[in-house]
Structure formats: structure tokens, C-alpha cells
């Protein structure tokens, strides 16, 4: 059984479509373009370039293709993840490697789960279906299956990407903090902020407690959450969620609230070090001045004849003595 799966899922990142032409890689996830996706509960992002793009009426029409390989390796499944962020008409096609051309009658079926979808045989060795993805319900996993030895599936997974901040944001009690989320490529319809309270995510409503939270939408792709009058309880994880036409995606931010004592300790340590060093320098200088004073008194007694000799000798000698010091 050769199967190709197309898994079309919630857009979590804006899909910049990448020109992917799979060569029948046997990895579980075929990645095109730059980003690697690791499937799982986490939201992952991938970028895909558009293979072809035609505007059919008001809806963009994108074609995605997967090539089923000639080598039969057991248990292989080709999965492609496609990210869509808005309503699109897409065409998914499975193309067979020329190795199969010897098979006269090929049974290819397009399925979504158990449901079979009518397909069009575009050419001798490629089969395609057209899908109109207009809302969440159409997202999912589509597979093309070739009756044969092995099963190959191609999964398409689209995730628009938004970004928070990896490092924690540090602020102080009584101060304010600004948490920022950015969306790349596409502008979300709406932003929502959540705070985690005992494992649960609670939406932040800025109109309820006016003095505490302010949510600013700086631009279409950037949102600011300003938390004022910070307390220890505000410390923790925050989520920003971007809603796109076809789904939502989240990003995580961490806020650390410190008390003023925390930076005070290193501050006092450095100040102490400075005071100690200055004291040492001053003491050393006083000590060496005392030594010099004794020497000066001694030399003063003998310096008179010294000076007379110098003046009588004139310019050259005194320059020489200058250099000697």
C-alpha cells in the first residue's frame, strides 16, 4: 500500500508557502523550506512556499504535490505539513515515481480518515483532489493511498508562527512590565492574553481591572500587555494567542518579579570593594610618603652643595641629570 497523507491543520503561523517537491523522503515528516517541525502537542511552525498560485475568483489557489517513491520500504509514510492562514483552495496531488509505470492498473484512493474523496487523475501517474479550506472543519489529514506493497502517507501541517520572548522578562515589585508578542507574515484577527493560575489559563480582561492591565495593539502584528503595580503574584507564565481565520496559535512568555533587595546585594558588594580599594591606596600612599619624608630631610642637608655644583656646570649637565631620573 503506498499512501500519501496530506495533513492540513490549524494555522499557527502565517504560511509563506515554500516550493516543496518531495523526493519521497522516508522520514516521518517531510520538511520543506527552513523550519523543521516536530509533531506533537506543541505548536510547531513550518514555512512552505507556494508551488503555484492562481487567483481563482477571490480565493487563492495553491497546489501541493507529493511524490511517492519507487523504493518500497516498509512502514514508510510521507507526511507534509501545510500551514494555511486564510481561506484557500488547494489542490493536493500524489505523483508516482516512474518505477510504477509498469503497473497497468493502479488503484489510488484519496481519503480523509476513513472517508474517501473523489479524485481526479490528472496525468498518467498523478492523482489529485481539490479542497476548499474555508474554516476549521476542513483542516485535517488527507492521504492518498496506492494499493501496493507499502503504505506511504504524506501529512500536511500548517502552523502560523507567533513569537513572544524566550528569556524571562524581569521587573520589580511596584514597577510595571511590558510583555510583547509579534506575529510574522500575517496579521491575526485578534489577540488574547492569558495568565496561568494554578495550571489553568485565564483570559486577561483589561477593562475589568483598569489599573492593572492594559492591552495595546501597537500594530496589526504586534501586541503589548502592560502589567502595572507588580506584585509577587504576577510572577509566572503568560500566553498570548493570535486568532487567524483558520485557527489560533499561542506563544509563551515568562515574567519574573523581583524585589528591590535582589540587585541591592551585588550593588553593595561592589561599593564595598571600591571603598576597600580606595582605602588601601590611600594608606599605602601615606606610608610611602612617610618614608620619603625621612629621606628628604636627609638629602636636604646635603643638597645645598649639590645645587651650587649644578648651576655652575650649566645646561648640559642638568639635562643629563634630568634624564637620569
Amino acid at each position: 500500500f503506498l499512501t500519501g497523507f496530506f495533513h492540513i491543520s490549524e494555522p499557527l503561523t502565517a504560511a509563506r508557502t515554500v516550493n516543496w517537491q518531495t523526493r519521497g523522503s522516508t522520514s516521518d515528516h517531510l520538511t520543506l523550506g527552513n523550519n523543521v517541525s516536530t509533531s506533537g502537542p506543541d505548536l510547531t511552525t513550518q514555512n512552505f512556499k507556494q508551488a503555484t498560485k492562481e487567483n481563482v475568483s477571490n480565493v487563492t489557489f495553491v497546489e501541493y504535490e507529493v511524490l511517492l517513491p519507487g523504493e518500497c520500504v516498509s512502514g514508510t509514510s510521507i507526511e507534509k505539513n501545510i500551514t494555511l492562514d486564510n481561506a484557500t483552495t488547494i489542490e493536493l496531488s500524489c505523483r508516482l515515481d516512474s518505477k510504477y509505470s509498469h503497473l497497468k492498473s493502479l488503484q489510488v484512493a484519496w481519503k480523509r480518515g476513513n472517508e474517501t474523496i473523489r479524485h481526479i487523475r490528472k496525468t498518467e501517474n498523478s492523482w489529485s483532489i481539490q479542497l476548499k479550506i474555508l474554516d476549521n472543519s476542513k483542516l485535517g489529514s488527507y492521504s492518498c493511498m496506492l494499493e501496493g506493497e507499502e503504505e506511504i502517507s504524506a501529512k500536511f501541517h500548517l502552523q502560523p508562527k507567533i513569537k513572544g520572548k524566550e528569556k524571562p522578562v524581569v521587573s520589580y515589585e511596584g514597577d510595571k512590565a511590558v510583555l510583547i508578542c509579534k506575529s510574522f507574515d500575517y496579521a491575526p484577527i485578534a489577540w488574547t492574553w492569558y495568565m496561568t493560575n494554578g495550571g489553568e489559563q485565564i483570559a486577561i480582561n483589561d477593562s475589568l481591572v483598569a489599573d492593572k492591565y492594559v492591552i495595546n495593539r501597537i500594530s496589526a502584528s504586534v501586541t503589548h500587555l502592560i502589567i502595572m503595580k507588580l506584585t509577587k503574584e504576577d510572577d509566572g507564565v503568560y500566553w498570548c494567542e493570535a486568532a487567524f481565520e483558520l485557527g489560533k496559535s499561542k506563544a509563551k512568555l515568562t515574567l519574573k518579579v523581583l524585589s528591590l533587595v535582589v540587585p541591592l546585594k551585588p550593588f553593595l558588594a561592589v561599593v564595598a570593594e571600591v571603598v576597600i580599594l580606595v582605602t588601601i591606596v590611600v594608606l599605602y600612599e601615606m606610608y610611602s610618603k612617610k618614608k620619603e619624608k625621612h629621606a628628604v630631610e636627609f638629602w636636604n642637608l646635603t643638597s645645598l652643595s649639590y645645587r651650587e655644583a649644578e648651576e655652575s656646570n650649566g645646561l648640559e649637565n642638568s639635562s643629563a641629570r634630568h634624564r637620569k631620573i
Partner: protein
Amino acid sequence: PPPANVGRAPGPPDGGWGWVVVFGAFVSIGFAYAFPKGLAIFFKEIQDFFGTSYSEIAWVSSIMLATTYGAGPISSILVNRYGSRPVVMFGGLLCGIGMVSAAFCTSILQLYICMGFVTGFGLALNLQPSVIIIGKYFLKRRPIANGLAMAGSPVMLCTLAPLNQFLFDNFGWRGSFLILGAILLNCCVAGALFRPIGAATASVKTQATEEGKDALKEEVTKDAVEMNSPTNIPMETKREEEGGKDCCEKINQYLDFSLFKHRGFLIYLIGNVLMFLGFFAPIVFLAPYAKHIGIDEYSAAFLLSILAIVDMIARPTTGIIANSKWVRPRIQYFFSFSIAFNGTCHLLCPLASGYTGLVIYSTFFGLAFGMVCAMLFETLMDLVGAARFTSAVGLVTIAECCTILLGPPIGGTLIDTFGDYKYMFIKCGAVMVLAGTFLFIMNYYNYRVLAKEEKERKAKEEDPKSVRTENEDRNNWNKETVGDGPELEPLREEREGLKKEVNGT
């Protein structure tokens, strides 16, 4: 040998405690130059915090830089009056106070004042006296001392950049400013090391009575009369010539405006003001240029690291080269050459393609940058002499202040207008090559005139009527050659000293 303050004008020690002073100057200069650059890490966060645009934040940096350079004359006046040590310690204290108060700011305007003005002023009080005191402690080995002290800037920058990042990740920007304020207090330690040298020697007093000066003048100029005791004579002769105009005289005590009649000083001033127009812009735009031609962010940052490391090595090395017997008498040519070399690097930069080309450019740029910086103050000292240097450095920095501030924005405008970085590099390169050539030609002329004056002076020496004391000779010579600092004196002694060295080794 008898201690320095016995009965005659002491020469600079050229060693001993001088090296400790160099270390102090290393720290102080390092903070003064590197600290404003290191703050760039915090700007993005502060910009988001206060909700301002990037240019408003960039003003903090500009104000700090402008104050550091613009407060130069004030620094010079204070050093003339009180000596280097109290000024540096006060400067360190001011920096600390500035940054600590910046940690508690609630608006961008307060940041301008605390970070921009106060800290900038404190850094100015650090920078000038550190450079000045090197001139007081060194003569023969002054270029080395200058090179070593100026190396503080890249070393501090390399230390501050990761430190700032670490502080920021752990304490946020407010906590970081608090701790940085404490770190800046280390400038006070550096200042404590600046032991005053050559104060109130007996020969100075006899000098004063010979000239018939009043006690007030003596006290004020005492600190300025370190080793070359007759060097304050030019100021005295000025007074006699001007017929005792008290107001101008008083100002000249604190800040020697007569320098503007000094040929060497004017040459230096014009050349340097021109040079600074193209000096800093390439550094500011190197990383953006790298990203523009497609290099990733980390490699672009690495270019700056290469620059800093090469700079670090280049400065003391240039100091050693400049101290050698071949270069020292003609140090002005070496300086002009390094400026022109710097300019040529910029002119060739647009030809660099790809990352390797830029790495080569960064290396040569770091080398040229280090060479110029190491000799920046050394050449000024060489031209005006150590005593007048105090005022000279103040006047030079305030003049340079304008072009330093103008340089990067002009570069930025060129980039925005033409959409291409190469015009900025061409402009910087052309300006610097021009400055280098100007300095070369004018210094050639200056050397010739000085040689002529030296000959005339030697002719006068033969005259049996002139009193044969070293100081009187210099007095006459100075009266004839108006505004000529005693730069020939150290050069002459230098040459004789070097001859002795060569013969001795």
C-alpha cells in the same frame, strides 16, 4: 639618587609609580569610551518600556557622548586648578550617582538627564585627567604609556558587552543600571592611584621671584608646572605683552586660550576635527552593512569582536613603535599615515565581497583604528608640551564634539538617500584621507619652521650676554617664538637620551 622634590625641576619619572598610573588611566579611559557603547544592549527594552521610538532612545547615547566631549574644557579648568586626582574621583562619584538615579527613572526625560548629562559629565571628568596625568608621569616612554592606557577602551568594551547582557538577563534594566552605577565607582579607585607629581618645587619659587609674579599666580600654576618649569612662562609673557589685562589673564590661567595662536595646535585641531567626521560612522554601520549584504546576525556581531580584538593588540603595539627612535621624532608623520591608512580601508571596503572580505576589512580597520587612537593624545602632547596639554585637550575635545556627533547621522542620511552603504564608506574614507594628507603636509611645514627656530635659538645661546641658566634660555627663546611650546626640548632631550641609550646598550 635624591628624591624628586629636592631643589630643582624634576623630570618625569618615566616608570615606577608611572605604570600604576597607566593602569589607572587604562581603567578610567576604558570606562569613558566603552561605557556609552555598551549601553546599547538596554535600549530596546527601555524603548518598549517607555513606549518611545528608537530615535528618542538614541538621544540618550548622543547626549552622553556630547557631554563627555563637550565638558572637556570644564574638565581642563578643574585639572588646572585642582590636579587630576580629585577631578577623577569626583567624576567617578558623579557617574555612579548618575547611573543609580537612572535606575529609578520613570520617564525618558529623566533618563536624558541622569544617564545623558550626569553620567556623561562624570565620564568627561574621567577621560581628560587620565590622559593629562600620563603626560605628567612620562616623557621618554610616553607613546608606550599612551598606547597602553588607550587600550583600555577595547578591553573594557569586550568586558562590558557580555557583562551588560548578563546583568540584563538577571536583573532587568533597572537592576542593571544600579549595579553598573556601583561598577562605575571603580573610576574612583583609578583616580586614587593618580598621585600628584612634582608639586611646589623650590626652583619654581625662585623662578617666580625672578619673573616678579604674584603669589596667587604661583599657587594656581603650581600644578601645571610639573617637569618643564619654564613652560608657564609663555602665559607670563602673554601677560606682560598684553599689558596686564586682568580678565583675559585670569581666563588664561584656567584655560589657555593662547593655544589658538600655537601653530602646531591649530594644525592638530583642524586635522582632527576633519578626521572625526568619518571616524566613528563605519563602526556604527558595520553590523547593519553586514546584515544588509546577507550575513547573519551572529557573524555580523563577530565582525565587531574581531575589530575590538585587533584594536586591543594594535594600541600598545603602536605605542611601542611610536616610541622607537626612528618614529618618535617624526611621530606626526606616523599619525598622519595611520589616518590616511584608515581612510584607505574605508575606500576599499565596498570592494569587499562576502564574509571573508568583510573579515579582512574588519581586521585592517581594527588595526588602523587602534593606531589612530593610540596616538591621538600623544601627538597633541608632542605638539604643545605636557603643561599646556591640560588646556589643549579640553579645547580640542569640545571642537571635536560637533563633528563626532555629526558623523554617524550624515552617514545614515547618505545610506537612506542612496539606499546603498558604499557612499557612506566612500565619504568616510575620503574625509579621512583628506585629513591625513592635510596633517602630513602641514606637519612637514611645521617641522621645518621648528628646525629653523631651533637654529635661531642656538645662535642666541652663543651670545655671552644671555644668562646661562637653563630656565633663562628657555625664557628668551619663548619670548621670541610666540606660542611655541617646548616641544623641541623633549625632542632634543629625547634624541640625546636615545643616543645614550643606544650607546649604552
